[in-house]
């Protein structure tokens, strides 16, 4: 890396789910970014990217929330989120949201051009490679729809995991299929979501992996919650925790020791 350590400033977009449900993912992201020589800043006026309102048809609230995000992250060279879904919201949907507002459109496009999903940022922008990380486990990786189709973050997590000592990656069948989370969808249409997550779980269990990882906490909470409900015991972690070597604590929904 040509840039000096601590010289690259990265603003972390924590995401609301990581903030509330799994702060360890945020700390793993900070650790990884710092390992690649970034100085991490966490703007304290951030809340959420606005997807709950956006996907519920509340365009006005979404625009207000998006405008606040744009303001909170103004001036940083890079903005990084440990989520394909939230990064996709900012990079693909913010510009569309302000297509009729010339001033904010420019700002939205500017932010979109500076925003990255964590794993692709580490790999593609920072040339990161985990070193000295060891994890003796058989793992399967779930592609969130946002990472798979919107952000095209598919090869990067696999490439980075390949540097982790003793880790064996086993791919599940039907990787293209959605897990059934879909934000408020999984609450409003819980029976349909149940069928979708059950098919996903069938394929995950068939790999005989002992761990599941993904780049989006929404999918992980859905899949982990269903795995436990059905009595399965599989350790479920965010990809940032795997890459940062922070795998000792309990996984999502796992009993505390």
């Amino acid at each position, binding site marked *: 890396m040509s840039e000096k350590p601590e010289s690259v400033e990265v603003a972390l977009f*924590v995401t*609301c789910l990581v*903030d*509330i*449900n*799994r*702060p*360890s993912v*945020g*700390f793993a992201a*900070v650790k990884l970014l710092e390992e690649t020589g970034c100085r991490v800043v966490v703007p304290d006026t*951030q*809340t*959420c990217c606005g997807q*709950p*309102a*956006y*996907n*519920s*048809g*509340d*365009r006005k*609230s979404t625009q207000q*929330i998006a405008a606040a995000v744009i303001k909170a992250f103004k001036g940083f060279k890079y903005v990084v989120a440990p989520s394909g879904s939230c990064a996709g919201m900012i990079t693909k949907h913010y510009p569309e949201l302000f297509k009729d507002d010339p001033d904010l459109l420019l700002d939205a496009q500017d932010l979109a051009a500076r925003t990255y999903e964590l794993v692709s940022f580490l790999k593609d922008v920072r040339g990161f490679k985990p070193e000295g990380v060891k994890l003796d486990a058989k793992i399967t990786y779930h592609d969130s*729809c946002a990472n798979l*189709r919107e952000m095209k973050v598919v090869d990067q997590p696999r490439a980075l995991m390949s540097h982790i000592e003793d880790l064996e990656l086993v791919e599940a069948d039907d990787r*293209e299929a*959605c897990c*059934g*989370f*879909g*934000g*408020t*969808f*999984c*609450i*409003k*249409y*819980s*029976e*349909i*979501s*149940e*069928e*979708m*997550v059950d*098919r996903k779980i069938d394929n995950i269990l068939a790999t005989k992996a002992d761990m599941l990882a993904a780049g989006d906490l929404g999918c992980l*909470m*859905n899949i*982990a*919650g*269903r795995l*436990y*409900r059905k009595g399965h015991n599989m350790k*479920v972690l965010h990809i940032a925790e795997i890459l940062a070597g922070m795998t000792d604590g*309990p996984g*999502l*929904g796992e*009993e*505390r020791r």
Partner: protein
Amino acid sequence: MQVTSRNFKEKASGALKDDDLRVALNRVKTGFTTARATAASNLPEFEDLRNKSRDIKDDVLENLDYYLEYFEEKVIAQGGHVHWCSNATEAKAAILKICREVDAKTVTKGKSMITEEIALNKFLAAEGIEPIETDLGEYIIQLADEPPSHIIGPAVHKTKEQVTELFYEHHQKYGYTEREEDAEKLVGEARAVLRHKYVTADVGITGANFLVAETGSTVIVTNEGNGDLTQSLPKTHIVVASLEKVIPTLEDVSTVMRVLARSATGQEMSVYTTFSTGPKRKSDIDGPENFHVVLLDGGRSEMLGTELEELLRCIRCGACMNHCPVYHAVGGHSYGWVYPGPIGAALNPQMVGLEEARHLPNASTFCGRCEEVCPVHIPIPKILRHWREKSFEQQIGPKPERWGIELWGFFAKRPTLYRLVTNIAAQALTKLAGRRGRLKSFPMLGGWTSVRDLPAPQGATFMEQWKKSKRGSRK
């Protein structure tokens, strides 16, 4: 057909418990998706052809009036007739008038979604004219008195055992008194029964995959050859098609055809591609004496120039439903109107009203697979979101859902308050879950916990922990 989109949730719930349907839908999920993927990867220029097909359809929509009049002129020049109909009532009246002119008693039909849209069969039957579906899938659901559940496989929800029972019930009058369980023999039985209908029918009605402006031809693609017999044996052929099926040239047809079958069934081409250009000429050996095209608007011209215009690119291949996880879960009938799956979810609110169809655009995770496989790049998730925004504006849908979003929005717009409330909530949930690490149930989150445990938070929020850490206080 009877619109039942309002009951989407109830119908979906029933579909999820229907074991026969689960078997049938699993065939869609694995069969069609694999076939499409293979067909697409075997054709290096597939992506290029998708873009070209989209551009051809966009050009058509930009110049729809021009191409339609061009098409009409060519049909008339060949001795055919064109009937312009703005709605279902006019289309049915036009079809009935033609049938009456030739004193029709029976009508054979090729597969046509537009005739489903205008509910033609019930109408003809009420007028004393017997409609006979000749596409095997359509024939099966006609016997079962059900609407189609898929646009290219109307009876895809039926198992072989159910077809055995249907044929046993309806074919005894033709001398088939045994229950036939062999699939091939079932097809043979249907063929024999239908063969007689083809030759005695007074009128043949087909849809159209394309209306070619430069030649005045109508085009259908089928795999059974039933369309050819339907349109060439009776003395009168009526083509029923909607406006957006027009396409400028034969060259354009061949471009779009290359993505159509590949996207639909994974075939390079359908087995039969049939061009009809006017009635039988003196030198022709066979063909109909009368050739009519019933052109239906049916709400389409209203969509031009709006957020919905891109839906009119649709070539009805069915790829969106073949790849849709919600369709795989609930099947086509849950959608409650002619068009199921993602395309139906995007189109039906326009056709049957948003209040009636409000569930359809909401019952999606926005996974994006429909748009990814659409041969003409229709941005279906974007259009579903458009409907959600319309619902929100017009206050359609349950109030509590709206209140929930508004309450969340209230906090999300106030960072300091949001910090405080989320931190209290995270710590409370952590305590409540205790060593277990997850919650089995929680008030207000019944939709979540009815299906899954809720993985508990890890104590204070990230923002709170960060603020207290050394780095967090660094500016």
